[in-house]
Structure formats: C-alpha cells, structure tokens
C-alpha cells in the first residue's frame, strides 16, 4: 500500500518535469492584444453612445456592456468566440464578453435536454459563480462601508 503511494507521488513528480511549460510570455502577449482590442471596441461603443444617443459618460457603460454581450453571444452561436478563446486565453475570458460567452455556451451545450431542463437550467452553470461571489463580496463590503460611514 505504502509502496503504491510512493509510486503515485513519484509519478506526479516525474511527470511534472516532462510536462511542457506553458509559453508564459507569448500567452501574455496574446491576452494583452485581444483583451486590449475588446476594451478599445468598448471605448468606441461608449463614445458612440455619448455622442449620438445622449448618454452621460458614466451612464454609457450600461449600453456598451449590453452591446458587447450581444456581439459575443452571437459570436458564440457562430462558434467564433470559442476559437478566439483558444488563441487568447484570459484575453477573451476576462472582459465581460467572456461572461456572456460562458452563459451562451453552457445554454447551447445542453440544448438537447430541452428548453426548460436544458437551456434555462444550465444558463448560469459557469457564470453563476461570478454572480454569487460578486454579490456576497459587494454585500459584505457594502455593510462594512455603511457602518464605517456611520461611525465617522
């Protein structure tokens, strides 16, 4: 038994030395360029909403995010966004488009199980964690900040 365990740990150690190291630098360059381009597109959209649709600078964030979500949902439907994700890694996952991609792709994946049990149930399968942690963190911090403002 102990010998088997030894082998297992040895195997993990040995296999680690043979695993290819991820190309850290190139991955970062790709993530930087793709992530930066998505944000530049967002800046373009928000300036458009400010100039043509009378949104204020602060309010323009909402329609911008909604437009980016629409674009990335469509790109996911056409299968383009997943290819971009393989190339860019975090560059396509970190912007809000990655959030929309995870919603749409998990909904599409379970389409065969029907609209209620498949699509609707699995819509937030991946994105749910983002909302849960965001809300919990914002709630706790909000209470702390409010209490802090009462003290001062």
């Amino acid at each position, binding site marked *: 038994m102990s010998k088997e365990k030894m082998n297992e740990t040895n195997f993990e150690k040995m296999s680690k030395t043979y695993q290819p190291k*991820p190309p*850290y630098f190139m*991955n*970062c360059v790709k*993530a*930087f*360029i793709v*992530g*930066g*381009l*998505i*944000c*530049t*597109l*967002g*800046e*373009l*959209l*928000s*300036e458009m909403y400010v100039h043509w649709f009378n949104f204020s600078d602060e309010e323009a*964030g*909402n329609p*911008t995010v*909604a437009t980016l*979500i*629409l674009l990335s*949902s469509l790109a996911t439907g056409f*299968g383009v966004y*997943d290819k971009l994700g393989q190339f*860019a890694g*975090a*560059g396509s*996952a*970190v*912007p*809000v*488009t*990655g*959030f*929309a991609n*995870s*919603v*749409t792709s998990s*909904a*599409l994946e379970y*389409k065969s199980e029907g609209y209620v049990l498949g*699509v*609707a149930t699995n819509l937030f399968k991946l994105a749910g*964690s*983002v909302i849960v*942690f*965001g*809300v919990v*963190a*914002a*709630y706790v*911090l*909000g209470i702390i*900040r*409010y209490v802090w403002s009462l003290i001062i």
Partner: protein
Amino acid sequence: MNFVWAFVVGGGICIIGQLLLDVAKLTPAHVMSSFVVAGAVLDAFDLYDKLIEFAGAGATVPITSFGHSLLHGAMEQADEHGFIGVAVGIFELTSAGIASAILFGFIVAVIFKPKG
C-alpha cells in the same frame, strides 16, 4: 488618447488574468470570480472610480467592473434607506448586463445549433 489607455489598461488586466491561469494554475471560473471580488474590494476604497476616469472602457469592460457596479448600486441605495438599501440596491446598476446576458444567451441557444 482615450483609446490608447483603454487598450493598455484593459490589456493589462487581461495579462494579470493570464498569469493567474498559467502560473497559479487557476481555472477560468476561479479567475473570473476572484476578479469580481477584486473589483468590489477596489471600489470599497474608491480606487476603481479613479481607474474608470483614467481608462474609460479599459476599466468598465473587464469583469472587475461587475463587482464595482454591484457595490456602487448597493451604496447608492444605502445612502437613502440604510441597511435595507444595501440589499435592495445591489443589482441596480448591473441589471443591464445580467438581463442582456440572460436574454441574448437564451435567444442564441434557441436559434443556433451546438457546435462540435
């Protein structure tokens, strides 16, 4: 100049995400969750607003701004209704993002066929 800073700051946030994926070996879901929490923490110290002022969409497009908007909505209502406001206002500013993600996600799933 707005576009340059949006590109640089947005790309920079993505580099941090890529390093968390490659070096710290986190899954994309872990990275996204920690970024949302990080955005809320930065907003608690009023730092994220300064980043948005400086970088525009470079700060509002990454998922960190989701945490920032959640806290902002909560604090706006807290000013009016106190402790209840924190719970009431939490989705106030993010409703556009979540509603459109649900709507478009559902419509695309109905129209398109899954690939692969």
